[in-house]
């Protein structure tokens, strides 16, 4: 045992990994180890492929050699059919994978009862020689059909079960079923097998409105909890891919505060810096509201940063998109040449939304894209996919988030629906982080594009409707004009703006004029003030002059009196006259 599990620390010891994407997750590790699993499904539901994948994974990646007992198809055909998948069966067949052809030959004559003891005994040899840990009995119903009665059938199944248990192999038995479990229990002669085994898996393949939908459901799993719901799956390049959403308990993805530009400068401002990296952006709008153009602007900006980007267009060819975007100044062709950008046109793809998602995933992973644009994502909800579309959209967003891919998807709105429905049956609007809505405003004989941000998680964002203007210089946003409760766009906005410009100019000129006249008045007053000042100085001079002449005259007068008294000699000389004498 430790020979096989030594270098596999992550493996659940009680379970045998199948290597099927998604299946190991919903079963929390794979099929029950050392026990028996029943795999039921209708024709073409993928039973053999599932079983083969289980063996290949064991042989290739888990050092658990396996044996494939083929009751229906010959091993040659199985190997040939599996050539499309990169499994390298011929190489594995040498040591780790053993095919046992146990198809009843058409000329086989049967007489009386028989049992499977011979086969099981015969299998003992290769099991021992290879050290096999896994075994598949493909289409057990074929051999059971040869048995004469129900008792014999039951006996052989128990024999098989016993053998599996004693040999400690992880067994997988496939059998045909309608897929519809209600009828399979009663109508099926091997219904009791479901009770006997430890794990039962149902594969379903039905067609809804011409679109094939594959489903897988785990009916029972003894001793383990599991995801009980139907899980869609597709048969793709790797063989088998079960679609799951991340379940509770799984680690949340890394969240960054990094912003990436939307490609339109003013839109970034409206969003408070752009989209978050790894966010999901939904652009909704009626046909022709420039959804693709916004997607293109984002693509160009991402490519300019040198980030690998993927543009998946369901509406038109890649070359068409490039040509159309060129007319608004978005040039993508050079990035395609440098392999930064990859354009996928998927106009003609029909099929289940699940298959589309898997294809998109594969292509995106192949390109190692960090930014993904899907135009429009509403294609996923086309006829036949109404029921699954929402789940697919959920998984798309989930996957992008866990891979850190910034996703911009456009969604076409029906003329009949308002934006409240946001992508109709997809309900993607509730999942998206940022929802930008584009609308037409018809007014005064014009149709103008309006852009508004309906929601943007975690970023402050403008509440304003902006006018989206497409020109050969690029995509810009203009403020719209609100006047008297009315929103003006296009020509009316322009008219209003130019009227304001004229009014502004007049006001500026009038202001200038007023200033000049005031300047003149001030100058006049200043001149007057100066002349008055001069006059004042003159007056002051005059005043002092007057004082001086008065004083000297008074002196002269008193000296004259004294002299006169001296000359008259009638009075005694006063002191003051002595000075006058000397």
């Amino acid at each position, binding site marked *: 045992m430790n020979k096989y599990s030594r270098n596999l620390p992550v493996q659940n010891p009680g379970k045998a990994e199948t290597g099927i994407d998604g299946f190991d997750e919903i079963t929390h590790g794979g099929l029950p180890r050392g026990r028996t699993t029943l795999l039921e499904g209708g024709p073409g539901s993928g039973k053999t492929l599932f079983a083969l994948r289980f063996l290949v994974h064991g042989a290739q990646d888990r050092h658990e050699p396996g044996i494939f007992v083929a009751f229906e198809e010959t091993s040659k055909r199985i190997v040939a059919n599996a050539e499309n998948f990169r499994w390298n069966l011929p190489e594995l067949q040498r040591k780790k994978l053993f095919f046992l052809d146990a198809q009843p030959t058409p000329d086989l004559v049967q007489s*009386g009862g028989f049992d499977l003891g*011979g086969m099981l005994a015969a299998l003992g040899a290769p099991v021992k020689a290879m050290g096999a840990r896994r075994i598949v009995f493909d289409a057990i119903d074929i051999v059971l059909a040869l048995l004469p009665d129900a008792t014999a059938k039951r006996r052989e199944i128990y024999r098989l079960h016993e053998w599996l248990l004693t040999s400690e192999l992880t067994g997988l038995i496939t059998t045909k079923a309608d897929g519809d479990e209600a009828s399979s229990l009663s109508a099926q002669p091997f219904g009791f097998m479901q009770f006997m085994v430890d794990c039962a898996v149902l594969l379903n393949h039905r067609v809804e409105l011409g679109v094939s939908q594959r489903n897988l459901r785990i009916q029972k799993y003894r001793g383990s909890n599991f995801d009980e719901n139907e899980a869609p799956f597709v048969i793709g390049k790797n063989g088998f891919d079960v679609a799951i959403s991340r379940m509770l308990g799984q680690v949340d993805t890394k969240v960054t505060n990094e912003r990436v530009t939307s490609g339109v400068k003013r839109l970034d401002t409206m969003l408070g810096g752009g989209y978050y990296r790894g966010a999901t952006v939904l652009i909704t709008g009626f046909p022709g509201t420039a959804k693709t153009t916004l997607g293109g602007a984002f693509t160009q900006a991402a490519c300019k940063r040198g980030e690998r980007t993927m543009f998946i267009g369901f509406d038109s060819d890649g070359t068409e998109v490039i040509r159309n975007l060129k007319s608004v100044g978005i040039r993508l062709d050079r990035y395609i040449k440098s392999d930064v950008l990859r354009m996928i046109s998927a106009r003609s793809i029909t099929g289940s939304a699940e298959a589309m998602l898997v294809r998109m995933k594969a292509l995106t992973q192949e390109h190692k894209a960090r930014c993904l644009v899907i135009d429009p994502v509403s294609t996923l909800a086309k006829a036949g996919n109404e029921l699954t579309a929402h789940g697919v959209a959920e998984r798309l967003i989930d996957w992008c988030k866990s891979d850190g891919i910034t996703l911009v998807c456009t969604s076409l709105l029906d003329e009949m629906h308002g934006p409240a429905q946001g992508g109709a049956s997809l309900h993607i609007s509730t999942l998206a982080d940022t929802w930008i809505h584009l609308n037409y405003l018809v007014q005064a004989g014009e149709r103008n594009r309006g852009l508004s941000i309906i929601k943007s998680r975690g970023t402050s964002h403008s509440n304003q409707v902006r006018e989206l203007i497409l020109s050969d210089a690029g995509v810009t946003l203009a403020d719209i004009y609100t006047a008297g409760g009315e929103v003006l766009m296009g020509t009316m906005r322009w008219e209003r703006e130019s009227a304001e410009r004229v009014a502004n100019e007049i006001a500026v000129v009038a202001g200038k004029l007023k200033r000049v006249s005031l300047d003149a008045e001030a100058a006049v007053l200043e001149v007057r003030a100066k002349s008055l000042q001069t006059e004042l100085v003159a007056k002051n001079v005059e005043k002092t002059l007057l004082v001086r002449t008065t004083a000297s005259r008074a002196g002269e007068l008193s000296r004259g009196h004294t002299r006169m008294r001296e000359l008259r000699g009638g009075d005694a000389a006063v002191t003051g006259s002595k000075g006058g004498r000397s």
Partner: protein
Amino acid sequence: MNPRSLFKFRLYVAGDTPNSLQAMSNLGALCQKILPNRHEIEIVDVFREPKRALADGIFMTPTLLRLMPSPMRKVVGTLSQAGSVLQALGLENVAA
């Protein structure tokens, strides 16, 4: 077909399970009755010699192989329905 030619059989059995024992006795009785002294029976127990069973492509037991005369014929089961066994082994004419 030469009516006097030798018939060679190989019977694969799974130990002494009821089916196997029944097949052995049915085959023995049949040969005694129709092919006295011109038959050879080899009994192979798959539990003892699984590799031989694998080589011969034996998945159900008991299985009877008619090795001679060629071509090889294969009959699965306890051989309890004598009519169909004779037909399968090409013995209808011999029996008549």
